[in-house]
């Protein structure tokens, strides 16, 4: 790999004082920077924080937010929890699975329970999402 990402990763770790307790914050920031968490990136973080690769693997594999494979476009999170289920969320999730979009993930509650079904695209929240509206959103807001 070229040196540019490595410098960026080290600079992110340094911003957090290379403190092991800030690992999750660092992983978030590195993922935003690279789009995913590559093995090289994890090794560099482990070195910077002076923790083992096994520890980092344990953390990365525990939390749903972290991606080990490259992805395209913003993450699309579809709420599968009860309040959205009660207003057609499962039909929306089924429809979403049938689209060709590769970066769709299940999530349990987006805190928009009075205006479901809810979808989070990147950092943008949408309520009362119908299959038709989801198609339009995927086209305009979540194109790879």
């Amino acid at each position: 790999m070229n040196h540019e990402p490595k410098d960026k990763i080290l600079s992110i770790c340094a911003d957090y004082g290379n403190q092991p307790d800030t690992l999750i914050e660092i992983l978030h920031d590195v993922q935003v920077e690279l789009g995913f968490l590559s093995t090289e990136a994890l090794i560099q973080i482990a070195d910077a924080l002076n923790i083992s690769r096994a520890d980092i693997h344990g953390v990365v594999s525990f939390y749903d937010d972290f991606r080990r494979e490259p992805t395209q476009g913003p993450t699309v999170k579809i709420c599968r929890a009860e309040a959205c289920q009660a207003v057609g969320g499962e039909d929306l999730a089924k429809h979403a699975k049938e689209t060709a979009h590769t970066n769709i993930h299940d999530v349990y509650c987006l805190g928009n329970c009075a205006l479901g079904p809810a979808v989070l695209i990147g950092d943008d929240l949408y309520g009362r999402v119908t299959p038709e509206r989801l198609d339009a959103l995927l086209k305009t807001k979540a194109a790879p």
Partner: protein
Amino acid sequence: MSARAIYVPCDAAALSVGADDVAAAIEQEAAKRDVQIKIIRNGSRGMLWLEPLVEVETDTGRTAYGPVAPEDVAELFDAGFLNGGTHDLSHGLTEDIPYFAKQERLTFVRCGITDPLSLEDYQTHGGLAGLRKTLTLSPEAIVETVTQSGLRGRGGAGFPTGIKWKTALEIDASQKYICANADEGDSGTFADRMLMEGDPFVLLEGMVIAGLAVGASIGYIYIRSEYPHAIKTMGRAVQIWQAANLLAGSGQTFEIIIRRGAGAYICGEETSMLESIEGKRGQIKVKPPLPAIEGLFGKPTIINNVLTLASVPIILDKGAGYYRDFGQGRSRGTQAFQLGGDIKRGGLVEKAFGVSLRELVEGFGGGSRSGKHIRTVQAGGPLGAYIPPHEFDVEMDYEKLADIDAMLGHGGLVVFNEDVNMAKQARFAMKFCEVESCGKCTPCRIGAVRGKETLDKIIAGENVAANLALLDEICELMTDGSLCAMGGLTPMPVQSAIKHFGEDFKG
């Protein structure tokens, strides 16, 4: 004439149905008509079915219009909405809308009224009064006030806040911590989010008071990553708060740090949350030791829910008696009930404990949005019971709900209509536990998988009676043997569904 103040919420729920587009449309239309306006991005009033709810400051008070779409804006100008003119979307004065007028807003007293990031607005509307009184009190007196108020943990467990604080106060330690639990993962709940986006300073004020009470100088706010708007607003609020140096001259300091979650429901469990703040896997820890004795980085730590901490400033300001006079029995003060799912008027209702479930769902909520018959309400999130209509008269407090084998949790109420299949909901409860279990203890990790498989067999009609008996045993084991509420309470929705809706479990 000075610029007319127009309020358009910046709350995530309002944004999810187009509040930004509405604000932009109002700005454009005003420019086109050469009218002076000033748009203020407030929090939400909690009347979410009316979002985006636009309010105009008039001589008689704030007048409400909603739900406003960008294409309604020109018409609203034509109808003279800048002077409170009537339109199909107008609801009169916001504070006269029955849904709002009938509430008892203590914790959410400023939410939706002020600019969330204006410390000046915050103080004009009563903010910092609690902190000022606190600075005149001894730590023991602060803890005593909170104890006397009867405040209990609003995250779900309902543990008396004053007793928790007293435990940490009595320990001698070089460092203590306050942790605000903003990992609001229960489906049907959004009160923490609404408060953090609509009145973030009240949480900070509550944390500082907690710090002064127990002798902690560092506070963490752990916010779930599914709440990007809350993370952003809280981050800016912390910067503004620290810059204002509100403890100057008191000889005290209090630093506040925000930590993001990463998509794990279990991190709302307090010991798991502490692990996550330390940068580790969010696996739960066996108690004792209690976090109040040995918590974050091994030091005494007070972990309170956002709403618990946000209720503290008004208790210190107005006195323990003022707060305790709301509510009933051992449930004192108010609860932020959150109405979601298939409900006509979804939103947040802050009421004293004791209001009936029926009043919340049918009175405030107006029944189902779909117009279909309501079959059940799940109270208290994914680990809470499914309550049948014949129990809708239950008075909402910790004990009365426990009497019917249900729980308050974080105050979320999810309404389901007659189309719901309760066996599938029971299966979902087990599946949710399977997905979100931290894996530390066997009853939760394995029980959830076996529970789901057994429900699949019941749904498919295989040996239904025998499998129901097996499911009952799995539930008993999970309840008795799990280390925390994840596995321990997953049986609650399952068993309530079987008890009240047995007809759905006949295969």
